[in-house]
């Protein structure tokens, strides 16, 4: 079974960076890491291939520079190889432009299953999996919290507002997985060493066969007209518990007349 996993390399969320006021894109001069949300898809893919007894996990990713450190993390976890679309013109791409690029790269791999996170930790649009599925003419099951493969069918528990649905879907299909569904493995030393020699195919947007006009800022057909600091909450009362802090909480709730 061949599983393709979409992964995104993002600035470390602990140091999220800022928007460049001139270009209105994320300053990416910091080192990029594997989005934690995607580590669940990578782990899930590795487990499903293990269960199937044969096959491999292939990564697809895109980036405006030729950064690969996040991909190496996923390769060190056990993915066999990666396709990286690396092109300056990708800067400013929205979800639809992103999906067009990833879908083209995925199609070339002819996978049985495409996995992704439900949303990235920096852009969190959450529409890319459905867009990829639509571009490829495939069924999709988003927000999966459990996946089992039974012959040519994916059996998925899909999160809902109230609980979950059991969903069955013929392969090939696109499935997005929620955080926490599996415990992503830590790359072993052996894995890290092996990852250095795993194939990462780097392609430009044109080499991939996508029109550069469909990606980046131009392709997004959106304009940011304002960037401003969000209103800040007024500073509150902070006290140290000396054994009676609960009394202050009760008094506060009394003041609010909610008791």
């Amino acid at each position: 079974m061949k599983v393709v996993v979409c992964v995104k390399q993002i600035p470390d969320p602990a140091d999220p960076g800022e928007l460049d006021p001139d270009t209105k894109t994320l300053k990416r001069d910091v080192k990029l890491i594997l989005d934690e949300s995607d580590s669940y898809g990578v782990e899930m893919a590795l487990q499903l291939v293990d269960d199937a007894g044969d096959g491999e996990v292939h990564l697809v990713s895109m980036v405006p520079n030729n950064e690969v450190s996040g991909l190496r993390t996923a390769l060190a976890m056990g993915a066999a190889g990666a396709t990286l679309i690396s092109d300056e013109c990708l800067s400013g791409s929205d979800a639809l432009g992103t999906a067009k690029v990833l879908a083209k790269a995925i199609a070339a791999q002819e996978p049985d299953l495409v996995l992704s996170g439900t949303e990235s930790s920096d852009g969190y649009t959450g529409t890319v999996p459905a867009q990829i599925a639509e571009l490829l003419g495939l069924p999709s099951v988003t927000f999966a919290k459990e996946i089992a493969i039974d012959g040519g069918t994916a059996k998925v528990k899909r999160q809902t507002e109230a609980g979950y649905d059991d969903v069955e879907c013929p392969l090939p299909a696109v499935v997005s997985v929620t955080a926490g569904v599996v415990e992503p493995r830590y790359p072993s030393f052996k894995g890290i060493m092996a990852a250095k020699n795993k194939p990462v195919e780097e392609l430009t947007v044109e080499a991939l066969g996508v029109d550069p006009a469909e990606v980046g800022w131009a392709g997004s057909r959106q304009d940011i007209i304002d960037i401003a600091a969000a209103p800040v909450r007024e500073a509150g009362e902070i006290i140290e518990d000396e054994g009676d802090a609960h009394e202050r909480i009760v008094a506060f709730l009394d003041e609010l007349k909610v008791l």
Partner: protein
Amino acid sequence: MGLDKIWVFAEAQGDSVASISLEILAKAREVADTVEVFMAGHGDDHAEELGDHGATAVYVTGDLDGSLQGSAVATAVAAGIEAGDFDLPDAFILGTTQDGRDVAGRLSVKLDAPVITNVVDLEFDGDTLVGTEPVFGGSTNVKTRFTSDKVGIFLVRPKSFEAESTGGAEADVEDLDVPDLGAAGEAKITDSFAEETEGPRLDEAAIVVSGGRGMGEKDAFSMIEDLAKILGAAPGATRAIVDSGWVPYSYQVGQTGKVVKPTVYIASGISGATQHLVGMKGSKNIIAINKDSEAPIFAVADLGIIGDVHKVMPKLIEALNNR
């Protein structure tokens, strides 16, 4: 000034229209003369409620035989546009929900129209609609508008607007023609499960009591449940402890969980990761208990207690029990 027409994707929640859909209707009615709704399933049960919230028509797919809503609704809308069945709207607004995102994603491909996501406010700039989206965990707001002549698709976050009954007449119910969905329609729901919780709904409760990793261990979460019960509150949780399996996802507050705006939010053992803050910092009053004085949660707290939850919470529960 106003737009001619806005389309809204509405969802059902049990026998009612989902609150996110009613919230969007209120905004749509404010900015446009005509508001029409698209919905999976049958519309007769909801026509009255949708009309009362400002919709004049509801277009429905009928029974989907288990198919997920995303492909069915998007395909029916695109086919209707293609066939010239509709006058195009100025915008199509959907909720940031599982199915809302599926419909928006698939429709954006079918119409080759971009999507503005995570919208928390909509306003006019001249005669174009502008969306406001928080970035970097809500520290910065960006305002975005479309530059193409495609239908503008907006995904709006829950609790961004207030639902409002207008006393409008029952909406006309119109059947949509759903074409063959091909492979995309083959993902089918075979069974549905609800994770029942006692007490008020998390996204509607006046008081929410939430726990995080700082509670230490799964058993300690019973303190959250106990305090919630006394206060008539809904219990909530951070992504960290949902991921750890302490409580089901239906408890999760935050970017990937529910957005809550209660009168009082009590954060117990929660450090305040941006993922969590995004879902609760609209609360009217925030009480935080955490032993780390540097925890980001204190930046949004109206009352912050620097202390051990295992000491403060039992005393708080006892004091409230004794009243």
